[in-house]
């Protein structure tokens, strides 16, 4: 039986796993907090859509580190770009401010040297420029395309031959 004075909140992820987390951790999730506050009676279990158990594991890791004053030690290096994107979407859904800043910075760092084509694919964006419009912007910002460490554009490589 769930006691109303329990310090633990039950969160159920999309894949059916139940995590019992401290109230303090649940408070960092503004979405969850809103659900708790809106409920008339005590909630037994809160479903969190879009969040999987491997996301919750990382969220709990981050929480433990930040409580210990070691949030800078939190790393998402082991995640590939798509896994990082999924994690970011989960944290965005839960509305967790600090972790959101950490993850958006991590994504920005990863995208920095990528090509325009990669960025479009990553965000699922269609190129809606005409070739002339694209060429004009490209020319205007030509300096931004230069650099040894920047990924070249796929179609431009072919054109230059």
């Amino acid at each position, binding site marked *: 039986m769930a006691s109303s004075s329990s310090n633990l909140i039950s969160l159920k992820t999309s894949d059916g796993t139940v995590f019992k987390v401290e109230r303090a951790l649940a408070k960092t999730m503004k979405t969850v907090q809103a659900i708790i506050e809106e409920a008339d009676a005590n909630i037994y279990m809160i479903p969190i859509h879009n969040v999987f158990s491997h996301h919750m594991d990382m969220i709990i890791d981050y929480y433990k580190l930040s409580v210990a004053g070691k949030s800078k030690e939190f790393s998402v290096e082991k995640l590939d770009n798509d896994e990082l994107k999924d994690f970011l979407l989960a944290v965005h859904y839960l509305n967790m401010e600090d972790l959101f800043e950490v993850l*958006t910075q991590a994504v920005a760092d990863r995208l920095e040297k990528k090509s325009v084509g990669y960025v479009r694919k990553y965000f699922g964006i269609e190129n809606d420029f005409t070739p002339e419009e694209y060429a004009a912007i490209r020319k205007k910002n030509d300096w931004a395309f230069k650099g040894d460490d920047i990924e070249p554009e796929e179609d431009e490589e072919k054109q230059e031959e």
Partner: protein
Amino acid sequence: MEISPTTSNAKVSNHIPDDLVNSILYKLPIKSLKHFECVCKSWSHLIIDSYFMTVYRNYLLSKDHSFYDDTSILLHSTKKVKYDLYSLSGERFENKVKLDWPKVPLHPSVRGVKIKHSIHDISKDNVPPSRVGDFSFEILRPISINGTLCLEYPEIPDINDHTKLILWNPTTKEFKVIYLHKSNHLSDVWAHHYQFGYDHVKNDYKMI
């Protein structure tokens, strides 16, 4: 923040909400930001939007900048008669890169005038209509505000008594020419007493 309800257990959709995209864009270095201006039309409009840029700049300014890693010195060299501009970066400022002055188009009426100055004479025949000025500049009270410098033409005579100043961002290469009216009764001494600053309330640059 909008929460889109979903009842399916399927994998999270690929679509990234706009506020999330913005949060990522704010954290990119300026070079990447300009690079990605051509991703799509909405991004290109966003990146030049002044509200977006204000938030972007605030993020940039509030970040912890390592004094040693991120600082570069601009060196304005007045060797002989031409002024050169260099950027020095790196731990010991060992990376020296020569910066090109902005290519500011010459005012049409200047092209017909014989320009005489202490460096060299340029006759009107050598200045084709679309020729951009190959002049070097003085930097006003050497200061940089948000990465923008204010430059003066030392050599070009004033057209209609207008003094020309140029706001220039060496990183993005953007520049803007400002014409200042010079009152007839002001002497040349006054002409060099401008000051250049930034008004964060009006979110604009100010010339005094």
